[in-house]
């Protein structure tokens, strides 16, 4: 009776049923978001200040997460890093998903040559390795936050497009689409009112998944030194800066890694455990 067990581990609230894992994941994400917003007001030290005599200092009072390779406060740097990691990734994933999903729905509804051209072009984009693409762009225009956001967005548009198009093509074959077409509806109405409400859930799930990819890619780029430039640092950059701490097992390298892991895993878990609306007719 797997079904019965799965059902009993969910609880209901406000007409939706939740699972415990999803709630915990949502709380972790919420915490990181709050930190990203309020980081400048809660950090104990400025991120550039050298506050420790030693490098890779251990956790102790005043320096709760130890110090980094220059003796700067790790707690402040991780909290501020949340700001860059979450902010840049969120901006990039929003652009990527919005443009990808829009183009995907338009391609599915219109069909014909527009669909073919868009699909082939974005497939070609998709075939460029993402790290390499980032490397080339950073080499060409330098590393700034807007450039990073745009690069990350462009890298993930083809995936979002493919995903949305595949979903929209299925909806497009439904009779209610034919009915709307024969009614004489415009493309804007077709994609906004008929298709989007039917694909919004998987699209949101995809949004979350893509957010995770972007966090990891951004961290990867930063680790290679192509992301944010010092003294600013996102979590990926923090790992790279403090990679020398590995032999000492200092918190400087462990904490940012844990931060990346906690955010990405939480987003994944939340997507898998989104609240479900209860559609019990007579209850």
């Amino acid at each position, binding site marked *: 009776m797997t*079904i*019965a067990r799965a*059902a*009993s581990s969910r609880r*209901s609230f406000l007409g939706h*049923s939740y699972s415990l894992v999803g709630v915990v994941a949502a709380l972790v994400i919420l915490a990181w978001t709050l930190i990203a917003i309020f980081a400048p007001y809660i950090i104990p030290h400025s991120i550039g200040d050298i506050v420790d005599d030693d490098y890779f200092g251990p956790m102790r009072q005043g320096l709760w997460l130890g110090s980094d390779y220059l003796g700067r406060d790790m707690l402040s740097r991780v909290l501020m890093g949340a700001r860059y990691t979450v902010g840049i990734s969120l901006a990039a994933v929003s652009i990527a998903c919005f443009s990808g999903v829009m183009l995907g729905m338009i391609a599915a509804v219109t069909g014909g040559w527009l669909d073919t051209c868009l699909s082939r072009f974005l497939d070609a984009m998709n075939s460029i390795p993402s790290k390499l693409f980032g490397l080339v762009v950073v080499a060409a225009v330098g590393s700034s936050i807007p450039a990073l956001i745009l690069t990350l967005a462009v890298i993930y548009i083809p995936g979002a497009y493919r995903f949305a198009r595949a979903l929209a093509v299925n909806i497009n074959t*439904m*009779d*209610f689409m*034919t*009915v*709307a*077409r*024969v*009614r*004489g*509806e415009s493309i804007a109405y077709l994609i906004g*009112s*008929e298709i989007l*409400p*039917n694909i919004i859930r998987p699209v949101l799930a995809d949004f979350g998944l893509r957010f995770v990819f972007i966090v990891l890619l951004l961290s990867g780029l930063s680790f290679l030194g192509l992301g944010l430039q010092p003294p600013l640092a996102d979590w990926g950059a923090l790992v790279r800066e403090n990679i020398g701490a590995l032999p000492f097992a200092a918190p400087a390298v462990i904490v940012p890694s844990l931060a990346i892991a906690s955010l990405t895993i939480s987003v994944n878990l939340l997507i898998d455990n989104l609240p*479900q609306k*209860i*559609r*019990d*007719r007579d*209850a």
Partner: protein
Amino acid sequence: MSNLVEVRNLKIEAKTDAGRLVEIIKDVSLDIADGEIVALIGESGSGKTTVALSLMGYARPGCRITGGEINVSGRNMAALSEKERAKSRGTDIAYVPQSAAAAFNPSSTIMEQVIEVTRIHKLMPPEQARKRAVELFKALSLPDPEGIGARYPHQVSGGQLQRLAAAMALISDPKLVIFDEPTTALDVTTQIDVLKAFKSVMRAGGVAGVYVSHDLAVVAQIADRIVVLKGGEVQETGTTAQILSAARHPYTRELLAAFEPKPRQAHADADAGTKPLLRIDNVTAGYGAVRADGLPVIRAVNSVSLVVEKGRNLGVIGESGCGKSTLARVIAGIHPAAAGDIVFDGRELERTARKRSQEQLREMQIVFQYADTALNPAKPVEDIISRPLAFYHRLDRQARSKRVDELLDMVRLPRTLRYRHPSELSGGQKQRVNFARALAAHPKLIICDEITSALDTVVASAVIELLKELQRELGLSYIFISHDLSVVEAICDEIMVMYNGERVELITPDKVKASTHPYSKLLFSSVPKLDPTWLDGLVRDPELVSRYGHR
């Protein structure tokens, strides 16, 4: 234990997503003797399939057998362990699903799948199983019994596949076979062959059967006894003759009444109805590459002409694949015609809907067969119905809301339904919403593409009655496309018979018995009658069957 199957006080519960328990089968008891065929009949949601499946000790996901006994050849299926049950499934009890097309694995041959059960239960060596299968193919009058097993499921027709599914069930000599609406998806001409094959095999083998169906006429041909279910309870049980001639329960009577030929409405304005509303001349349409002469390679509709007069109804009838749905799509401009003219209300129409004016689109509405896919599942009923009001009539919010109420009244739905989503409606309710949306446009012509074929008989006849009433009130015309003669007869002034993309004959309903074209004769004679002796007494011209009954 005198009977093969004895079900006593069966209770099955389902759990909703809110965790609430709903009793879907309430205290059902029934008996099946050796070699007897019992039909479970009822509307959708009456629990007939649930009861049938419970005979194998199986409850669908989310359901649980909570009480009662299910004794099949002396063993209580409800109390057995899952392992024990699995042993009896396929050997003692076999199952023939509704859609054989979905039940076969497309990637292995038919023979492999038919004899699979003998391999799983180690009943006989494969060689013997194959021989037995070929015997069954012969008994089920399948063409090429020696060679058909080597084919893949997509290489045989729907009717043949359904018989092959029966062969799969019968190969292990079960004591009981459960048929779950096995002919519902088939054409009438095909249905007869399948029914005949089932009947002869079951009788020859002395196998007991449970036949689940909502079609009383089909059941009358094959069942010894009928159990009428509604809302998870047995309403009435009796021999087929008893139920058909002396039904006591009101619900059974309602089912029977749905079969009776209805008095057709007399046209008071018979003279006024001479102005053609729609005329199509030599329309050809199809699929595939376009040839040099501008016509497609595969022609689904071949040079068809028809006229619909104002306030009159035209029925289009034919088996699946005859081009009747394509014709509807051509008229509506969904599938542009390759040749021919469409004249609507005195003006020539463009072939594609995109090029037609909004007014022309408004005046001709199309209602599709499957209300499930024709209604956007993400929108509440009121949004669905009010969209044409906003789009064509530019009504403001208040006027729309008032009109939605009126339209819901018109299609006899409670006003409170407007906040529901389509998934929360029954099949008949969905089809009414589907129809209300077409009415919202205030059209002159409504094309109904098989709108009753997904509905139960009782619900379908209620929908037909509704259409007639609305016609009287609103002066509509219908083009009624269906494979079901009784539906078309009930509502249409003229019937066009289509075969293989061509118009075969145009007749009036009162002359159906005297149709002249051989295909119409075959089609009309294939519609099952309530008379239990009909199938056995049916004599069909073998030449006709081989010419037109190509399945």
